[in-house]
């Protein structure tokens, strides 16, 4: 799920940037540092929407670096248990398949794939129904439900299922060609 929240971060700025464009430099450094990172608490920071407030800088003894407390608005993505996501399959093996829903990686193990889909170890490993009507392979798009999340300080990993109503392949690259 996506959230629009305000976060705070202490930015350290090198003294060489102290000039008329200090603020711009601060913002661009913030974007470079923060966007694409993941915190277990808030999820993946997708984009910074703007700066809310820049506090008074504090000069560090010895180094000359200055620490600014910066409040910024950003969009975060945090997967939850029970959430339905659309994901792109990245890897298929006999244990199941991996898929990516934006920044988050999801693993669907083979016992959470419908029983009528069998693993086929061809040159492109895939899961196929007996009548060949549905095929899951690399780059397939699937709709899945998250049934478990593992949230570390800097990493979120999910496991999902497609063994439920209205889940499964939503577009098949093989079918289009």
């Amino acid at each position, binding site marked *: 799920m996506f959230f629009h929240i305000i976060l705070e971060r202490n930015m350290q700025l090198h003294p060489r940037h102290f000039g008329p464009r200090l603020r711009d430099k601060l913002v661009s450094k913030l974007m470079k540092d923060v966007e694409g990172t993941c915190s277990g608490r808030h999820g993946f920071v997708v984009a910074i929407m703007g700066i809310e407030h820049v506090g008074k800088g504090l000069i560090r003894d010895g180094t000359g670096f200055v620490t600014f407390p910066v409040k910024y608005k950003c969009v975060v993505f945090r997967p939850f248990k029970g959430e339905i996501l659309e994901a792109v399959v990245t*890897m298929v*093996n*006999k*244990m*199941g398949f*991996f898929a990516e829903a934006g920044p988050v*990686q999801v*693993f669907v*193990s*083979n*016992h*959470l794939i419908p029983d009528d889909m069998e693993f086929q170890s061809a040159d492109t490993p895939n899961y196929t129904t007996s009548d060949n009507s549905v095929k899951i392979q690399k780059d397939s798009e699937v709709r899945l439900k998250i*049934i*478990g*999340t*593992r949230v570390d300080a800097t990493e979120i*990993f999910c*496991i999902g*299922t497609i*063994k*439920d109503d209205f889940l499964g392949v939503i577009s098949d690259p093989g079918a289009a060609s």
Partner: protein
Amino acid sequence: MSNSLSIEPFNRLVKLTARAFYDDISTKGDNQPKTSRSDNRGTAVVILDALTRRQWVREEDLAKDLKLHLKQLRRTLRFFEEEKLVMRDHRKETAKGVRMHNAAVSATANHHYGREGDDKIKLHTHSYCCLDYAQIYDVVRYRMHRMKKKLKDELDSKNTIQEYICPNCNKRYTALDAARLISEDGENFLCESCQGELVAESDKLAGQDVGDADENVRRRRREKLKEMLQKMEEQLKPLVEQLNRVKDLAVPDFGSLQAWEVKASAAARAAGGDNPDDPSRSYQGGTPMPFLGDPKIHVDISGVEDKEDSKSGTGSAPMKVLPPWMIRQGMKLTKEQRGEGEEESKPDVTSEPAGLSDDKKSTVVKDDKSIQDEYFKAYYAAILERQRETDVKGEPDVSTEEVTGQNTSLDRQVGLKSKREEQSEDEDVWEEATPSAGNTGESYKVDLNVQAEPLPEEEEDNDEEDVEWEDG
């Protein structure tokens, strides 16, 4: 009118639901200590049962009837409202509004409601409640579906996290570790410590029985789940059956409070405004025999015009005959719906004792049981009358056959043949056809028929036939 048809099975559904799911609902908060004295479990069931016998009811009246404290009742009703079992309506009303409701209630319910203190009530907020049968049906079905799904999912380990085990060092991993276990070629999962290939745990379980304590716990849990599912299916079987029974029935719908009041009071007025509190005029409520109190029934037997009058009076549509496959156990059907109404209407044409309909009318004020008895008596009397009628009609036919027998054999055969063909058809046609059989004794036979058939139209018909045949 269709309300009262299916209300009985729906009431049974509500009662079963109450006992299955709301048996141990206590209106007290969990933080309060539960002493045996304040234990009010079961009240919810009583309230639901009481509601099945009513339609829209003022909560004060309900509380009084159940000898419950109003606050306690409200708390339970609020709970049921959240559970989507009852509809509630609150409105500010004056004494007049209350009286209007009382009138509506007394027109539908079986008992008198106290009207004391009507005039003292000023502008007060009154709450009304009523069972929402349509929603109850859906809610119960959804509830059962969720229960079953939850247990089944657990049983199928549908949403459980797959575990992997290293056969070499018995190290366990879950699917959540999958990202860092994946091997270089992306084919397998490898153990972090010994680089052995991991196997899914369920495969292992199938292959060999591991005497692991953890394993046993899981198996026991599985068995418990299975048992629970079985028990659930067993214990909720009556409820499921009742659900299936009401599946195709029309859901009783009382409408909103306003609509219901208007309808009920209108019905009361139509049923005879002089005595609106007549308790026997149980019209569409959950009374045991709602149809027998209906004025429509007793006029069915009497004259045709009467029937028409009463129909327009009550403003009810004529009932349709239900096909046999639609009739289910637990349905309450009227004679008309079983298709017996036709038989009843036939005696209308024949001479009916005039006192019968009057008799019926007087019984309306009696209670339902006596009405039912009276009704059956009258019904059987009508059948008997009818049978006698046909007997009388049959006799002259035999005589005519004898008369025609004196004629040439050819004539007789023709006559018989035509008679047999017509006999299978409707009565009137048959009677019209009989003159065609005879030639010499014809006039005599027709006279006999006329005597048996006092209605003038029939006579004319027969006469016309005569003329036709004499011409030919």
